């Protein structure tokens, strides 16, 4: 495993949207204690698109859940915009899950409104905001459709709209396109970049797809197998806006290769 110089400095000159310092996590498994994450330190600058890749079971989802406030780490520090996040805080962090997890008894717009209705925001404001979000993700005409009437890609778009509806500065995405077929995945990736470019959010995105990682990211963090550690940070300096044609370039291939090498050697 390579030790890379750029792994060291995590304090940075700008405060990060997400700061993780020496985070470790241990839980009680069937046969004793299991170390899920080990000495994770990372710094995600505001407005950047960071992708985390790693083998199955390396703890990347757990890490994301901690950033979302859904889980607590056993040691180390995790700050989101300067403050810890012991509980979910939808005003700071929006989450998009792999299974869209839309509520089937609500229409698309009602699903997007859901977080606002939990806070008892006034109805008209909620509705307007939700419709705005749906327009942002390209689903204007579909506000009154039920999830069962929507395709997989459309459901994920609603899920993204829901994650953005409270305008959190940070958006966490856990393999959101994993359940989609490849063509839809590529379209959705492109769409996501468009949405991101108009909203300047900080995004942390987990994926198994190396192509997706290179295509979307400003920076790719590679994790090792359990106990998960960050073994590489790879800056993706491809120009934006990204295009499909870039995927055919040598540079793209080279970056992919590098990630793949890291993952293979991490097993």
């Amino acid at each position: 495993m390579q030790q890379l110089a750029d792994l060291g400095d995590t304090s940075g000159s700008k405060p990060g949207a997400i700061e993780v310092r020496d985070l470790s996590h241990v839980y009680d498994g069937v046969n004793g204690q299991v170390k899920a994450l080990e000495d994770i330190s990372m710094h995600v600058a505001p407005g950047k698109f960071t992708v985390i890749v790693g083998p199955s079971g390396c703890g990347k989802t757990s890490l994301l859940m901690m950033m979302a406030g859904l889980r607590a780490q056993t040691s180390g520090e995790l700050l989101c915009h300067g403050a810890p996040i012991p509980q979910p805080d939808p005003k700071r962090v929006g989450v998009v899950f792999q299974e869209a997890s839309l509520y089937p008894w609500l229409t698309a717009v009602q699903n997007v409104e859901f977080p606002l209705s939990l806070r008892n925001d006034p109805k008209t404001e909620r509705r307007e905001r939700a419709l705005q979000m749906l327009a942002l993700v390209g689903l204007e005409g579909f506000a009154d459709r039920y999830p069962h009437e929507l395709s997989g890609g459309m459901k994920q778009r609603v899920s993204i709209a829901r994650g953005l509806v409270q305008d959190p500065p940070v958006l966490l995405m856990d393999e959101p396109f994993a359940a989609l077929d490849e063509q839809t995945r590529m379209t959705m990736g492109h769409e996501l970049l468009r949405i991101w470019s108009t909203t300047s959010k900080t995004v942390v995105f987990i994926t198994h797809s190396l192509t997706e990682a290179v295509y979307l990211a400003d920076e790719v963090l590679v994790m090792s197998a359990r106990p998960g550690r960050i073994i590489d940070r790879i800056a993706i300096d491809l120009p934006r806006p990204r295009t499909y044609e870039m995927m055919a370039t040598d540079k793209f291939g080279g970056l992919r290769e590098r990630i793949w090498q890291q993952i293979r050697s991490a097993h």
Partner: protein
Amino acid sequence: MKPSRLPSPQRVRWAMLVATLLAWELVPRAGWLPELFLPSLSKTLLVLGSDWSIYGSALLITLGEVAISMLIACGGGIALGAIVGGLARLRVLLMPIFSSLYAVPIVILYPVFTAWFGVGPESKIAFAGIYAFFPVMLSTAAGIRTIDPQYLVAARSMGATLSQQVTRVIIPASLPTVFTGLRLGGALAIIGVVVAEMLTAAAGIGYLVTLNRTILDSPRVFAALLMILLLSIAYDIATRKLERRLLSWQPAGRSTIAMRGASSSPTTNVSAA
């Protein structure tokens, strides 16, 4: 698909219904079957009309018994089913016992209830209540398991409090299952009450069947049978309409969530009686 020159299935069913009614009228009149076995439809309806007060009050008694049994079976069955289904330990321990017990015809318990409670409504209610209880409980237990746990994770990520998780997520997600339980419970309660009234009773529609059979008054027997038939069909239609309206957010077909979870066999939720 080739353009069908066959009439639509709907039409065929209506045609069959009409044919049955016609046969019911004409076959006894023409003497192909003795009036004892099959009184004509018109005779049956006439008797129903003339004795309307008797049939009406019997129907009310039966409905009352059904309502209370439904309360027991659905109230208890859904509540217990949710608990047993939701707690893995309980479920694993108890479910096999319950499905073994399913093999026993519950009707053999009815004499116990008449011995304990007499011939009045209590024995019917006790019997029908128990008769409907287990299928409702089993169906609810299975249905509860189909609720996606991710729904709660998503709710938490959006900042839902515990009570919001229950009221805004768990309850709506359980509606299809609860509704199936209600529908099933009602149908089984009707069947249970009718069987009980036919066996040993002093009042109710089932009692009228038995009473008139023993005096060989076929038109009155069939009038009572017709009422029972109409009652169960009306209940079925009404609940399915209600279900379609309330659960319009479900994908095509009836309560797919509930049905998927209910059983792998198509027959677990139907009644043997």
